[in-house]
């Protein structure tokens, strides 16, 4: 069964997250607190799902985590405190935005390093493509003009 589902997901170039997520019974009465809970939930991974946040998943674990997030918020935790509480329990794996550290250096730095390298490559390329008629050719100096006139006169 699972294999079929995976095959199906694969075919569709789309994962098939479950339809239901936050249940009415979970919603906090304070809308400001609930909004924060939703925001935090979007950054936390449902650990038993394939790349889904706990906000999108209907797995039991995701529901438990959503409740946990709300409990911590009601207890007065800040957003970061809630996240670090979960990281202490489940490790970095629970964060959908991986923390910046030595093992994720290439992940965070990679795109920017590539952009910088690409930009340098493009700069070199553009310089070379510009050719002799490029815009950075300085206009003739007075001296050069006189020599050119002299040469032309010789020719004529």
């Amino acid at each position, binding site marked *: 069964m699972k294999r079929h589902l*995976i095959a199906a997901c694969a075919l569709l170039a789309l994962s*098939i997250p479950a339809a239901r997520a936050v249940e009415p019974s979970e919603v906090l009465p304070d809308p400001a607190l609930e909004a924060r809970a939703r925001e935090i939930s979007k950054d936390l*991974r449902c650990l038993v799902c394939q*790349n889904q946040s706990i906000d999108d998943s209907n797995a039991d674990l995701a529901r438990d985590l959503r409740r946990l997030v709300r409990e911590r918020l009601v207890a007065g935790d800040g957003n970061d405190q809630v996240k670090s509480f979960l990281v202490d329990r489940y490790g970095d*794996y629970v964060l959908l935005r*991986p923390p910046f550290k030595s093992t994720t250096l290439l992940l965070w730095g990679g795109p920017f390093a*590539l952009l910088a390298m690409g930009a340098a490559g493009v700069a070199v390329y553009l310089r070379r*493509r510009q050719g002799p008629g490029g815009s950075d050719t300085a206009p003739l100096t007075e001296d050069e003009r006189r020599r050119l006139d002299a040469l032309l006169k010789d020719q004529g």
Partner: protein
Amino acid sequence: MIPELGHYALVLALFTALVQAGLPLAGAATRNTAWMAVARPASYAQLALILVAYGALTWAHVVSDFSVANVVENSHSLKPMLYKVSGVWGNHEGSMVLWVVMLAAFGAAVAAFGRNLPPTLKARVLSVQAMIAVGFLLFILITSNPFLRVVPAPIDGRDLNPLLQDPGLAFHPPFLYAGYVGFSMAFSFAVAALIEGRVDPAWARWVRPWTLAAWSMLTIGIAMGAWWAYYELGWGGWWYWDPVENASLMPWLAGTALLHSAIVVEKRDALKTWTILLAIITFSLSLMGTFLVRSGILTSVHAFAVDPKRGVFILILLLLATGGSLLLYSLRAPTLKAGGLFAPVSREGALVLNNLLLSTATATVFIGTLYPLFMDILKLGKVSVGAPFFNATFIPLMVPMIAVMVVGPLLAWKRGDLTYALKKLMLAGAVTVAAVLWGVAAHGGPVLALIGIGAAAWAFFGALAEFAERIRLFRGPLSDSLHRARHLPRSAWGMTITHAALGIAIAGMVGTSAWNSEVIRAMKPGDTADIAGFTLTFDSIQQVQGPNWKADQATFTVRRGDAVVTVLEPQRRSYSTRMMSTTEAAIRTTLFSDLYVALGDPDTKTGMWTVRLYHHPLVPWIWAGGVLMALGGLLSLSDRRFRVGAPTRKTAAQKGKAVPAHAHPAE
């Protein structure tokens, strides 16, 4: 009997492809015209044989032949006919047969329409195309045979995954595959050009229509997938940065870069080695997407290790295709001569910048998608890379891309005048500022949404400004402008439509992501809920019976004030064979927003139903934008210049224009 015929046809197709991969290539090397001429009939035969196989499989599905394992696992006698037909590609084995159908169809199209291609180039292109076919046909026959029988045959099948029994999804895979596989054409042309040792503007003009066709199909495929996710998954999300989605986004981004760099090759004979490399990369990313989703490696490295046969096979295919072509590239690319010169501020310069940003964006998606895998394999720990990462890295790359996209077309080839271009864009700039101010006034943020709405306005109105400039609108009599518009090449129309459509799509993405509202509530018949100025009354709930499902269907009356706006009837379907349920959301679409109602589970104790209400501003613009982008691509494709065979005629026609003619006379 018919499934065996299909199986046999597939084996014959493999041998035809083997001949097509070998003889014409050898013929081109030894100038043996008879051997080269084999390519054409061979590619027709290959397509015919694969179609026979595909037809046989379809027949087995349509008549519900439950002695075929593939039918048993993916069909049911009560399944509606549409899904019996689409169910053929709704599973791994069948989808691979569809893949080779597309591959052979593209090859046969080159054979049929590429009459003006130099014979050696044509022979080599078809040869390379056949090599890819050999790989995939072997893959099907060895690891994924769809024609295997089951003895004894069961009474009925296990039905198709209910999520796939949906009209939107029925046609999503063929479009996606036409896109993926279409990029094989660019790849074959690139490899053939490397073997020939020659890349020139004529080559670019031959390869661009195929790339354009593939890109348009992929655009539709991705848009359809997003649309399906939106209405089927029950809460209106349409993009999850899921690895499987990323697998389709990467070839799309690289393909977009390829389309633009090929313009520079065609017009200015520059960027040749880069364009060849992009063609190789684009198809390699298509292959990699196939590997990622087929091997199960995304679920976990361990799932891959449990049943590695398919994964390893595609991995080898990927390494051979990518490695082989890159090796050839490293040998041959240095011998390609660089062409036209240009200043940094020029149309070429803008297109180079576009390529830099699109390639970096592709690389970013690549790194983000594969990083968890590398960490896991190297035992560096487990890490999750999700939407927050991509939003933080991908979007900053797209903003300058869109800024350049608008300015680029207003710059002249060789050397452009930036001040002139920006002057022409003053009105578009003013509208952009107004759009951002509107965002601040109406919604007050978030900052990312304000940037997004600015980008959308800039892309849309910038494209219009460029078009107005082209037809000299308001600079002479209107009839003159209309006359110019009528005689503008279709590729110019295509560009304007596609660029403006991107702006439309971005506005939709911003609107629905940043400014949606939702109400999640337990309701019973008689209750009402308010959202975005609408009042919804839960009138009743009743049972509905479908061909292979049962559903609870709720009726909601939507009112604005006292006036009844519409009635929405969301369903919660359950498919008995697979014991799965699906959400069929009810959506009221208007030009500017969607009102979305999804029915959740009932609480057996209280008799209350979970109801999810959403208001998604601008969301229809995403689909409209996607479709328009593809239409713009197809319109460009119909340009006379691209009609296959046109290059020879073009040589004479182009001389009269201001654009320097670098057309290479066809051999």
